[in-house]
């Protein structure tokens, strides 16, 4: 559903809502009185060259009520001292120095108990936020009747020198445009995945999403792979159709080897494997914690949500139900699931793997 939201300061912000699986749950919109606190979590690992610009882009936000937790994730270059220099004397910033790098996801999970904003953005330390990033996201979120799990702006790609490589990329960045409408319609089952710094979450959703985190946290795990999927599953996505941040292609990116091109898969094969493993681990955790996450809507939303977490289509989900660790978890929880949903429904949704 495409609409324009009219909020003071953003008279015509084009937005598009992509529903979560079975959005029957009533999620009240955020309170619209005072400006809610917005938390930036900047996670830096060896980005000495770029992090000053990123910090500057956070400082330049035109939104009045924000805080920033800058995490140095065990950098071995001069990032830490650079961040220290930048944040000293500005009470809106705090620095957390982690001795070792256990990956972006580990740092992001650690940050959740240290921030208090209603809305949260995990910022990559080489990316840039435009001055209206926080204000546009908050404006869009406050104009909602039902609270989305995640809001996501368009993103501009830049190179290491700051030259713009492509502008205003929509979500579904790695899928062909021909099926775009179809994909958006089918997104009740699949999350549109945007590059990291374009997404804003509600902190309460991230605290629930933490239940889906893998047991072993390691370097290539990206926070958005967990947070985006989980948040979309919980409340759907609000897509803001204007560019609000810039994603830097440095040639050393873990996820994107090249600038985005129509229908070109730029993810390294070895990273795709990690992504798939992470997805299966999340799904396995969801089988265990689905009741806590979905609350009263557990019965009607469990299976669509599990399909959403396993990548989208029913056929894909069925195939992934047969892969570890999801297969083992489903087997171990078989009796509980049959008790909760009945044998017929369990067999129908699990397919041949039942």
């Amino acid at each position: 559903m495409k609409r324009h939201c009219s909020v003071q300061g953003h008279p015509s912000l084009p937005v598009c809502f992509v529903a979560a699986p079975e959005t029957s749950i009533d999620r009240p919109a955020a309170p619209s009185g005072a400006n809610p606190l917005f938390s930036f979590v900047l996670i830096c690992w060896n980005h000495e060259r770029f992090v000053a610009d990123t910090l500057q882009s956070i400082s330049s936000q035109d939104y009045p009520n924000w805080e920033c937790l800058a995490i140095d994730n065990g950098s071995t270059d001069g990032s830490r001292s650079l961040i220290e220099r930048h944040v000293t004397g500005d009470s809106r910033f705090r620095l957390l120095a982690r001795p070792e790098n256990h990956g972006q996801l580990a740092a992001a999970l650690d940050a959740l108990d240290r921030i208090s904003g209603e809305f949260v953005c995990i910022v990559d330390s080489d990316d840039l936020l435009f001055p209206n990033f926080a204000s546009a996201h908050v404006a869009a979120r406050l104009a909602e009747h039902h609270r989305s799990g995640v809001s996501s702006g368009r993103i501009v790609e830049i190179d290491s020198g700051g030259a713009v490589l492509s502008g205003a990329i929509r979500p579904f960045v790695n899928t062909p445009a021909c099926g775009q409408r179809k994909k958006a319609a089918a997104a009740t089952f699949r999350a549109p995945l945007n590059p990291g710094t374009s997404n804003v979450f509600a902190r309460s959703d991230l605290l629930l999403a933490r239940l889906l985190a893998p047991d072993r946290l390691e370097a290539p795990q990206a926070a958005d792979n967990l947070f985006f999927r989980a948040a979309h599953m919980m409340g759907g996505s609000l897509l803001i159709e204007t560019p609000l941040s810039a994603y830097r292609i440095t040639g050393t990116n873990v996820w994107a080897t090249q600038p985005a091109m129509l229908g070109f898969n730029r993810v390294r094969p070895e990273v795709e494997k990690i992504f798939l493993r992470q997805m299966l681990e999340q799904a396995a955790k969801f089988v265990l914690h689905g009741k806590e996450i979905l609350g009263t809507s557990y019965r009607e939303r469990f299976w669509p949500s599990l399909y959403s977490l396993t990548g989208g289509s029913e056929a894909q989900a069925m195939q992934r139900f047969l892969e570890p660790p999801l297969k083992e978890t489903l087997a171990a929880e078989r009796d509980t699931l049959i008790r909760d949903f009945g044998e017929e429904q369990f067999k129908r949704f699990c397919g041949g793997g039942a």
Partner: protein
Amino acid sequence: MSAIGGIPLGSIAGNLSLPRVCVIWRKTGNPAFDERMLQALQAQDYPLAELKIIEPQDSARLNLKDETSAPFVCLLEGNVLPQPDCLSKHMQLHLGLPWPVAVSYESENFTADTKTELLPDPDFGVSIGAIAKPFYAELARTSACNDPSVQPWLSADARVCVYRSAAVGIFQSSSPAAAGIAANDTLLPFCHFIGGSASLASGKTSSLPAIDTDAERAIRISQLGLLLQGAEKLSHAAPFRYWRAANLLARGAGTAEVHALAGRELPGLLKTFGAQRTVNSLALLIGPRSVHRLFLSRPALLSPSLLWHLGRMQTGLMRRKK
């Protein structure tokens, strides 16, 4: 003033700028025309263009990666003089599209009636200062995006093409034969295949024309050869598209030539696509019986999995015969 979402580039932290474009032009040897071309290039209103002039006697092969580090490369060919806003228009398309493409080109076959929605409102995307609002609207009306998933291969007679250097790099590094190829007639279809294209002053490109000359047949065979040789790198653009493009090129290209090409590239294809997809896709390309013959003539390539898939195909053939 160039802007993103209505915000001037200069007021965004991080010193954002427009990308550089390297214009590569090979002199024709006609002093009068060369002089006019030079003037036309100097009159370009895109602020970050650099010019690389190739002397006519220099080698026809150019490794663009070695020639420039600019993220975009413009190849000028033939006797077309670019208008002053030529580069700005191309770059506006590259930067304004919600789906970035690998190449933009100017097509001489202008058919505005097939126009599809393309450029977003300039206030919600990247706008180049040199393109004033009325011209932006005109550009949006007379340009179109060609999706490689719908049309994996295209044939367009384009003299002015602006490529993403990344796409050219993928093509030129896909095989030794592709290294150094820097001519629009080959780069355009391959870059379109890799990451899509956008055409200016044209609503639609023609798909492959019917083969009616030996020269066209030779071009197609050479393109098919490059596609098959570069399987590993080019298949990143999606395997289904790779084989659709191969089928399009093979159509009418001459059975014997296609067999010979496929036979030569079998090890690379097997490595890239695995036994099952290679056997099935080749069966569509040259026919199941020919696939059998091809593999049986190369016993060194036969693995248990390959034999299993060949056997499965054979069983299917026998069933169909019954």
